[in-house]
């Protein structure tokens, strides 16, 4: 996993609440057995005017001109600013895979859905929760200032604007540690293999039916 310490980037808007994982990456792309290549189909149903299919040449599809990611000013964006409950719905990790593949490293919202939030950290994406009024302020900045950039500093747990404003954000220390160092958490867990075995031995005595299969 790619580490993230301090990230500065162009901000793009997804100005809706309750953006669900079906909207982030529609189900037909979940037939893939790979974990890469989902970027061109990120937000497929609102980004294009026709129905996307695996294998279809996306460069020939009609774009929705009203969708921000299709607009010149947001090209190269790596930070997505959005509203409440982003990522609600299914557990599909294809959602953060698509965001990451498109080039997003940081997401900002007043709240995220639990499973999605967790999936982001497994894929080098930092989801930042900021108060709704701060998010609204950032949307105003974004719309009024072409080229609006933000800096997400995971070490200091701080979001900064170029003009010197800043907001601190919370992130739990284990997730922060893994993302700062790009750690494979399976490797970390396997360092506790003795504890897992000890638990199994104890549990086998207490609840033998759980180990019958």
């Amino acid at each position: 996993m790619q580490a993230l310490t301090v990230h500065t980037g162009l901000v793009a808007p997804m100005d809706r609440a309750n953006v669900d994982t079906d909207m982030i990456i529609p189900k037909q792309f979940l037939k893939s057995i790979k974990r890469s290549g989902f970027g061109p189909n990120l937000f497929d149903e609102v980004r294009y005017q026709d129905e996307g299919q695996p294998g279809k040449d996306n460069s020939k599809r009609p774009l929705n001109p009203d969708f921000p990611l299709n607009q010149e000013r947001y090209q190269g964006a790596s930070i997505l600013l959005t509203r409440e409950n982003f990522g609600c719905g299914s557990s599909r990790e294809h959602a953060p895979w698509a965001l990451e593949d498109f080039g997003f490293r940081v997401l900002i919202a007043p709240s995220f859905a639990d499973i999605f939030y967790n999936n982001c950290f497994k894929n080098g994406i930092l989801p930042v929760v900021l108060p709704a009024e701060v998010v609204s302020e950032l949307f105003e900045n974004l719309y009024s200032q072409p080229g609006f950039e933000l800096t997400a500093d995971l070490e200091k747990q701080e979001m900064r604007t170029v003009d010197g404003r800043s907001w601190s954000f919370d992130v739990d220390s284990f997730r922060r540690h893994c993302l700062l160092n790009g750690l494979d958490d399976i490797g970390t867990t396997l360092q506790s293999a003795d504890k897992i075995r000890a638990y199994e031995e104890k549990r086998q005595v207490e609840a033998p039916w759980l180990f019958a299969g």
Partner: protein
Amino acid sequence: MYKKDEFVLFTWNSKLSASRKQQGCITVAGKTLYDKLWEAHLVDQRDDGSALLYIDRHLIHEVTSPQAFEGLRLAGRKPWRIGANLATADHNVPTTLLERQAGIEGIRDEVSRLQVKTLDDNCSSTGIMEFGLGDERQGIVHVMGPEQGATLPGMTIVCGDSHTSTHGAFGALAMGIGTSEVEHVLATQCLIQQKMKNMLVRVDGELGPGVTAKDVVLHIIGVIGTAGGTGHAIEFGGTAIHSLSVEGRMTICNMAIEAGARAGMVSVDDTTIDYFHGRPFAPRGEHWDLAVQAWRDLVSDDDAVFDRVVEIDAAAIEPQVSWGTSPEMVAGIRGRVPMLADMPSETQRQGLQRALQYMGLKEGQALTDIRLDRVFIGSCTNSRIEDLRAAASVVKGRKVSGSLKEALVVPGSGLVKKQAEQEGLDKVFTEAGFQWREPGCSMCLAMNADKLGQGEHCASTSNRNFEGRQGFGGRTHLVSPAMAAAAAIEGHFVDIREWGN
């Protein structure tokens, strides 16, 4: 014990929100069901606040597992405990008999075929048990698990599917996980977790005639919102919940995720224990007695403290219909689509406007006026035998409206299908004009050929009405099996309580 801390939450159904009370706690006392399940599975509590939680049962399906198996292989790792895993293909399988008869090779869509084949290969190479296509035990993972007794009270259960919350219905801690976590569980039999908060949704009183578990959970989501349970494990309690069968409780816990909660659960009672007796994977003999003794403790203590409590009056719940593009956009069948002017914030006004446009509805429109193109009875929410019986009892002797393009019944598993056929339910459906299909997720998420066309309205017993969920441009209305069945006969929604008498 509770400090009253009422606050106003926006709800789509403001009339009903008046019945909601929300309270915060001030004392430290007994343990909740979630606390007990957490403690029983704690392998290691780390200083940084994270914990290693042991996983008793891992359910696997074709869509969210291939990348996990590949990750395992690339790292040279093997499954930690093969017997804890159980697999079946459900999301991406065709449901027509014609396509299913030839097994995996019969799947026409080659991308889907490769995915189902990959699950088969991964299970064979690791030795993980799989109910393959053609096995009567194959079905939607969340129908198959409990049916087999492969998911049991007191277990921690995970699956790369958000509706894993279903299995909380029998006093288990069950959660959906992402593919990285699927790989993590395969490799370590553990999950890295932060403990969630405790929330109790208590539904007391008696449900009215025609009001089902589906209506209860849709109503709850309408009251607390789709993010109402975020960060919480929800326990559903109260007399109305415990009056439901285990299958009804599954319907409720299934949609906990639609209220934002990764886990939903119901405490164990006699109904729970009776349900599991004699199931193929359930403990037997001495082990059964030991298990039952342990399961009896899977209830929240009387003095348990919840971070949030929501109280719902069962008698006030009407049959529900979702009208919008989020499960919280729901109302009683006698209700109407909300008015833009009634929205309390600009974001919500825009959300309503977008939903109305997508759904092709007008503000203030009566729900009974929504004309339907298709009806879908199925999904991990409502495809069990009781659901099919409820729908069949409505359909019996009647005909599907000529205005519908299609009405599907997709049983949740091969065994549900077999049971329904033994009861003659398949005949009831097909004689009325429904199609009777092979088990799978089908039109709930439309990964296979079962999908809505652009602009089509569907009465669906599934769990999500997101834009495009059931097909590009498709319009989903979430309802109970009985409401879907009655809507199929009439071609539009009707109040099941008054209809057909």
